[in-house]
């Protein structure tokens, strides 16, 4: 709260979140107060969009897809993913962790390579076989 010229003004911010629910691509606007509570949602054409945008604001999560280096393999890399979403703000931390991982054949698609990566409850799993 700022006191200015005898009036009280509350800090507000407006955040724009692009909705991906349909090809319109509404740019949802969320007005939040200084405690990051949602005051108002606007510029969305449907309820699906509102639900998505609120979720995106409150706890954005993503599935991470990447590659890990191999050992003793004719292939240089193995494609992997998290088998659950992880918080969006921990993506780069997850990537730094994956840089240290080395896998060697044989690996089956779906096999857990790193359980519970950086304590997110998501496992890193192989997305293809590595047979040689």
């Amino acid at each position, binding site marked *: 709260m700022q006191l200015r010229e005898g009036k009280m003004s509350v800090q507000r911010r407006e955040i724009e979140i692009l909705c991906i629910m349909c090809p319109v691509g509404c740019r949802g606007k969320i007005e939040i107060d200084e405690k990051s509570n949602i005051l108002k949602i606007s510029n969305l054409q449907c309820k699906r969009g509102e639900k998505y945008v609120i979720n995106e604001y409150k706890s954005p999560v993503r599935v991470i897809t990447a590659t890990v280096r191999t050992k003793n393999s004719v292939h240089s890399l193995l494609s992997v993913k998290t088998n659950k979403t992880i918080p969006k703000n921990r993506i780069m931390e997850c990537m730094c962790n994956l840089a240290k991982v080395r896998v060697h054949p044989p690996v089956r*698609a779906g096999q857990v390579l790193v359980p519970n990566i950086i304590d997110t409850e998501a496992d890193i799993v192989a*997305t293809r076989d590595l047979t040689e």
Partner: protein
Amino acid sequence: MVSTSNNVDLVVIGGGPAGLAAAYKAKEVGLDKVVIVERGEELGGLLPQCIHNGFGLTYFNKDMTGPEYAQRFIEKVSKLKVDVFLETMVLRLTPDRKVTICNRNGIRTLVAKAVILTMGCRERTRESLMIPGARPAGIFTSGTAQRIINIEGYLPGNEIVILGSGDIGMIVARRLVLEKVNVKAMVEILPYVGGLIRNQAQCINDFEIPVLLRHTITNIYGMPRIEGVTVARVNNKRQPISGTEKDIRCDALLLSVGLIPENELSREAGIELDPITGGPVVNERMGTNIPGIFSAGNVVHINDLVDNVTIEGEIAGWNAAEYTMKKRGFTEHRIKLRNGENIKYVTPQYILADTKEVFLSMRVKKPEENVIVQVGDILTKSLHAVRPSELLRVKLSKKELRRIKEETSELIVTCKKKK
């Protein structure tokens, strides 16, 4: 098991998702000798390098990565004992379905009862855009960069500029940022981003990649390796505006400026091509103008979801098998679908209207909100929004197909804004 006889039932040219779907479906329907000829080292086409997710959402109701999606069909093809020739190039296809192939074992000519063209597409290059400037090392198409990063294990550079905001460019931009590469700018000539909204949100917005809309690259400099590009704002005629030039230093330039169906073989065989899609003119059975030659996937038109490519491949496979076993021609082009207002193209370009349902795939020319898509006088569909980058699929059910009058020879497809 490699077939020693040159007489086969079906040759599928290209072992990506379209070819895999066509081959397994033909086998399921009952064809005996089905061969996939694939020039790469493995099946799957582009899927093995598409390590990101978003595949299989409609077909499997799952969110899969490219390799996972490919694996499903590679396993199907293997279980059904389809013959697969890897690292094998098709040199020539003739109208009477002789397929000349070449690999380490030499050259052979297969004689097929039916052929399915599923060669996919390639990327538009710097040369075809005629970007002025030096011709140094460090200029890649985004798909090539994707292969280099995800399969070979190298980075194309450390300071990247991307030209074009197509899906591949956005996906690769995200991949690069995840590998701690500095993606300095995405340069887009149109006033809006080109690819799927999902990619705009999860690649560009998530990682705050700077996008320069209404800009283009007017110069490339640096030798022997690229050192930078000059970007300029463009006017409404997409011409660079003098005085707005800005240099951006980079050690790699990636291009995401369009995909072109790869139809050299089709052209040489005398297949009729549509100049707008760049692919064969087909009917709803995926038949071309030549009896026994069918086509599916990106070689017909550039798709946006692999799930639809699979469905197209299955239709081609099923009909190629029907053709082989019952000798139905499928070359009759009864009703032409004409591109009307705001429609860039529709496939299939012709329909026979003798099946229980037909799926039309179309793209609009300009983005628009609150529209009505109309197919002649037989179907009207209301849509919230349309964009050129998102393929529209419209189903003509039996009810709609029955509305086609006997004397109808064409249906005009339009996409108009609601009044």
